[in-house]
């Protein structure tokens, strides 16, 4: 038993780091099992995964933050208590992250250059935030525009992970009228594998799951049409929601604090976008599986979907019009009435003309002239 627990430790590997931090192999295997489950891999893959990750060299990661709010970083680093997700982050070689790293200015940029040089073709780029294509001055780091930095860094990357809705789909900076001309990573980089991990912010375990997959298999997991890992974004919040039975029964909360809301009835009428939002919130939940927005009493706002910000009010049910109003209908009816008056006038003149053209019918008028 002891022998098996004392696995071979390769210097400079993830396994070495884990051992140094006192993480037992059993604990790590358990973690890998849960990751495997989340990634929709067969349970037998867990030990292979543990093996692969243990032996892997600490992956060089360059984290680029563009037009963002640091919420994604916050989400991942500020978990409720230290978790294995945090450990994984400690155990990768985060060679550049201008919010987290100690170095600044030239030295920081130097670190990025060094990492790119040392791990050319092998390093992973994580991006949060969208990239402004308008004035480069809208967002730049060390005098380098976001666009240029992304293009330069992406060149030698093995893959890119677009973290958060801004990096994945443009997000809030791109919201109408998109003053900075913001675009997503995928809009600029076309020749590298890109995986999108949208959410505002994304769920931490989704991030680590993707990293674990990359470390295990050396590539990106299966993705959907929007470049999201299928294992996390395969179902809608609505389909996995514990309140779903109430939707099917036609039981809905009418306001945020009514009896129905307290009874946990469906929040559809309060604007929940769960039915059109693909994410894992309803299953993995947040803060160590404590809760997620719907459980806390607020409808899903659809933050992991492209352009969710422009998809109408958060508090309008999906079946409500985005902008139609009754006054608009009244206006249209008035136009119809005006046209109707014109048609009626025309019809009446047609009929009046027919009446005027009427010649009193006599018996002789009943027979046609035979031609």
């Amino acid at each position, binding site marked *: 038993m002891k022998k098996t627990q004392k696995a071979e430790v390769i210097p400079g590997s993830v396994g070495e780091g884990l051992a140094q931090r006192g993480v037992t192999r059993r604990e790590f295997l358990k973690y890998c099992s849960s990751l495997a489950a989340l990634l929709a891999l067969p349970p037998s893959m867990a030990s292979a995964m543990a093996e692969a990750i243990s032996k892997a060299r600490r992956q060089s990661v360059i984290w680029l933050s563009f037009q963002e709010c640091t919420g994604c970083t916050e989400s991942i680093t500020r978990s409720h208590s230290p978790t294995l997700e945090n450990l994984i982050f400690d155990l990768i070689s985060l060679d550049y992250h201008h919010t987290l790293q100690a170095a600044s200015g030239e030295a920081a940029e130097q670190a990025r250059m060094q990492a790119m040089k040392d791990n050319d073709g092998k390093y992973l780029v994580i991006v949060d935030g969208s990239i402004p294509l308008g004035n480069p001055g809208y967002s730049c780091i060390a005098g380098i525009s976001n666009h240029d930095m992304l293009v330069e860094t992406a060149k030698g990357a093995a893959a890119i992970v677009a973290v958060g809705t801004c990096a994945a789909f443009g997000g809030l900076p791109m919201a109408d009228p998109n003053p900075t001309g913001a675009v997503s990573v995928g809009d600029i980089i076309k020749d590298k594998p890109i995986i999108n991990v949208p959410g505002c912010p994304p769920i931490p375990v989704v991030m680590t799951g993707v990293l674990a997959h990359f470390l295990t298999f050396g590539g990106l997991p299966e993705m959907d049409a*929007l470049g999201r890992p299928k294992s996390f974004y395969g179902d*809608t919040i*609505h*389909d996995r929601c514990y309140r779903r039975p109430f*939707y*099917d*029964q*036609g039981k*809905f909360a009418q306001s945020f604090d009514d009896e129905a809301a307290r009874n946990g009835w469906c929040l*559809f*009428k309060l604007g929940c976008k769960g*039915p*059109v939002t693909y994410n894992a919130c309803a299953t993995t939940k947040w803060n160590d599986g404590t809760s997620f927005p719907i459980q806390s009493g607020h409808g899903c706002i*659809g933050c992991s*979907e*492209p*352009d*969710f910000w*422009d*998809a*109408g009010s958060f508090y*309008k*049910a*999906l*079946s*409500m*019009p*985005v*902008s*139609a*109003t*009754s006054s*608009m*209908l*009244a*206006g*249209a*009816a008035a*136009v*119809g*009435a005006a*046209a*109707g*008056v014109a*048609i*009626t006038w025309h*019809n*009446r003149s047609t*009929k009046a003309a027919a009446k005027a053209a009427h010649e009193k019918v006599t018996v002789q008028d009943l027979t046609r002239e035979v031609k």
Partner: protein
Amino acid sequence: MNHLDLLTFARGSALNWALMIFAAGVVLRLFEIFGLSRKPDLARPRSDSPGSGWRTMLSRSIPPQGMLKRDPVTYIGGYVFHLGLLLAIFFFAPHIEFFRSMTGLHWPNLPTALVDASVVAAIAALGVLLAHRLNNKVKRMLSGSGDYLAWAVTLLPLLTGYMAYHHLLFEYALMLSLHIFSVELLLVLLPFTKLFHTFSVFVSRWYNGDFFGRKGVAS
């Protein structure tokens, strides 16, 4: 354009235009009809039965004696279709939200499963009615492209709604968008096709009931 964008367009500008064409079209068509006017009937009515037109508006929904037996498919199919459609449009909770947002009025909804069943019934009835239309020589003779168009644009919202709810064929947001587009197509075409009977049926039934009522016959 991604699916959510499509949905936002369907719920947004597309819906606005469809609703406006619908509202303008319905009002226009009512003007067309009422604008022609009619001469007052100078013959003394047999009895004062001011309610006969209004009564016929409702009573004409019941088949006259012997008629149900003559064409059960049309009557039963018609009932099932119209009732199913009515339940789906007006008693599905998300739809009530639509009406509430437009009018401020709302009413209790039915359980979704019941609405689902009524939609299935309505779709099945439409299928039967189409087969009947193709097989019955009178219906076939009377039918033109307009009849089949009206059939199709009535079926589409039912079908897409059902498919969206059950996640068939396309993912939900896309199917929901298609559902809303199909409703918009229906709204745009309704005033200008035979589907306008939705409104004019009350006018024609009223006249029928009034004409017969003046003669002392309940029609």
